[in-house]
């Protein structure tokens, strides 16, 4: 199975949106790792992994995400996951891989979160 990733960058809001479609498995994980690294190194405040179309994830794929989460945290940025399907959610659950990641069940939650982020920036 293949993995297609679509990266959308909003420089103004300092947000990167990475949409995953297909399977993030042993085979696709290394490619996705490189792509995600490129996005993270841009130093945006927030990187959102949109898993709306992600059908499958294995431990190799999760490692990539965990590594990215650790890196963004070290840089003072955030990595968030949105729109996880139930079985994807179950894998996250089993491996207890949630502590440092914001998780949004759907787009609405994500938008609300972004809104609050904006307000926070303005407030600063």
């Amino acid at each position, binding site marked *: 199975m293949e993995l297609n990733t679509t990266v959308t960058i909003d420089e103004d809001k300092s947000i990167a949106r990475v949409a995953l479609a297909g399977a993030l498995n042993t085979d696709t994980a290394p490619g996705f790792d490189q792509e995600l690294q490129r996005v993270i190194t841009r130093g945006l405040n927030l990187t959102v992994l949109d898993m709306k179309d992600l059908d499958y994830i*294995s431990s190799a794929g999760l490692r990539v995400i965990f590594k990215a989460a650790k890196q963004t945290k070290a840089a003072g940025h955030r990595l968030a996951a949105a729109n996880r399907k139930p079985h994807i959610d179950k894998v996250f659950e089993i491996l207890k891989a949630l*502590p440092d990641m914001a998780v949004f069940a759907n787009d609405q939650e994500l938008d609300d979160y972004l809104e609050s982020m904006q307000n926070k920036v303005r407030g600063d």
Partner: protein
Amino acid sequence: MKNSIATRLIAVLSLCSALILGVGMWLDYRLSREEILERLKNESQETIRAAIIDMENWLDGVEGSTLFLARILEQRDYTHAGLEQMLKDIVENNADIYGSTIALNPVITDSPGGFAPYYFHRDGILTYADLASEEYAYQEQAWYLDAVNAGKPVWVEPYFDRGGGETLMTTFAVPVFRVSAQGERFLYAVVTADVPLDELRAYLRRLRLGDSGFATLLSRTGIILSSRNPDYIMRHYSDARSDTVDLPTWRDMLQSALAGQAVTRQLECPDIIGRCVIRMDTLQSTGWPVGMIYSEHEITAPLRRYQIRTAVIGLVTLLLMALAVYLVTRRLTRPLTVLVGASDNIARGKLDTALPTVRGEDEIAQLVMSFDAMRRDLKTYISDLETATASRSRLEGELAAAREIQMSLLPGGGEVLEQHEGYSLWARVRPAKSVGGDLYTYQQSGERLFIAVGDVSDKGVPAALFMAKATSLIQQLLAAGESPVTALAKLNNALEAGNDNCMFVTLFLGVVDLANLELEFASAGHTPPSLLRDARVGVLPQDDGPALGLAPGLEFPRNKVQLAFGDRLAIYTDGIDEAFNEAAQMFGPERFNRGFGDGAALPLEQAGAALFDAVDEHAGDTPQSDDITLLLLELPVQGDSRSTSRGVFPAGEGLAGRVITWLQTALEEQALAPDVSVETVLVAEEISTNIEKYGELPAGSEVLLDLSISASTLAMEFSDRGVAFDPLRDGKRSELGADIESAEIGGLGVHLITQLTDEQSYRHEGGGNILRVVKLLDTDSA
């Protein structure tokens, strides 16, 4: 102490002796009483007779003197002075005579008044009186006339002799007759002797019988001469108001007495205590009745004294005897009382309690000695028992430990339920003693399921040790994948070696090919298995060989049976069919097969337990005589048929991808829930990634994936020729949580494998790794 031996002995012995003594004394009393009464009667009569004889003697003396004087006067003539002198001499010298006279017939005297000198004792002085005075006129006196009229000596009725003796008296008067010269007989004189009534009374007073007894004397005409009451003297008895005896009785008795017949009457007398006795007799000389009245009560007083004395002696004897009995029984029972206390103490466990000291060799002493012996024996016995109990509980503890160890040799520790996608297996062993000689075991190797059920001869510890040896050998042989026939032959040789005790094992050893359901088995003298198919139970025909361990180099025939889906197989030891009930009837294969068939609808575990219950119910209270083992094997029913497929993948880069691609295709054919497919693929990817990255697979080798899906299970078995590695145990399972990103590659995968499947097993077999995972399917949604 109310019921003590002493009390009862005293009571019983006292009662008995009182009875014996009482009867003896009563008999003695009866005999003595008659004797005493007789004696007393005689005594009283003797007293009376003696008194009467005394009186008779006295009166006889008076009579004699008077008759003598009369005799003299018949023949000789005396002057008046001479007569007087003679008379004076007689009265003076004869104390018995109160007074005496010689009254001459006045006709023959010179003086008209006659001649009658009278001498008498007045107050002890001899006194003279002349009776020939005109005042006295002796010839008219009764004593003179009576004698003259009678013409022979008479005793005159008592009278008061006025002018003569001047006292109450009676007189013995003797007429003296002479014959004249013409031969005519004429009265010459009357000679008399007087006896005063006082003197008579004095005699009678001596006649006293008892305090209230008295005598009475009457004249022939019934004048009372002497009585207790002085007022009655000289009165006729009928005038005297008698307060003792009524008149008719008195008259009656008097008449009898006057007729010369002594009479004795016993009457009730008012003034005398008890009965009074009246004895009436007569004086021979005078013919006067003499009556004796006395109280029988007083006379029999000695008898009563005797009675009282006897009673007192009896009572004292009885008391002394009771005392003696008390002392003797107390002496006898004192050791018993002490013994009772001692036995109480001993019963409380104080075995060193002192026993009473006894002397001699009587029964009590023997009892105490026996008791002491018992106490000593008991002490020894208890101490022995304590030792025995201690060693017994130690032995029991060891046996319990041995049982645990023995059971741990068997899969599931003596009872096991194995639910597998290709089969279900349930087995249970129950030794008759703490440890036993029955065994079961099974082992799956790929599609081959090995089953063994065996029974070592005998039971208990020797059988258990032999069973342990046999079990470990069997497990080794099964692990080596030997065929039943070969395994039995090898096992036989191994067990035979050094088997000097000639222990042996009957064994069923079979292998089921789960792919084609073929059962191949060999039997070493074991009970043939029963097969339940389509609700009918049959016994599998078998060619069996001898029991194992007795002779080397034996061969065992091979049996092959084609099983079918839905079959249920029961393999058991003879502890089941040879279970006896109270009537010594065996449970038997028929009963077993019936029970096996009855449980067809039950789940395997319950069916097995029901068969155990049936055996127990049959045996009742009869203790289990042999170890019991039952193994049930069930193949899934037809509708639960599996689909199996195998993927073969060459080692090398992209292994996981190839595995997933094949698996996804394979799974598409199955109507599985989408999440089950996804999770199965994920698990397969994790496993194959691990094999690819860490297996160091030899170039050109292959990785096999056997996929097996039934209605209830999905199983994947990965086989590879890589380095021996059990990811379930040896995998560096990463810590979950914050530091998960630092986990080693593969370390996370193991978490996913164990979480997303229900069973995982690893074995290294034939130089390769075999990892098997099973996922139970939710049958409702399938």
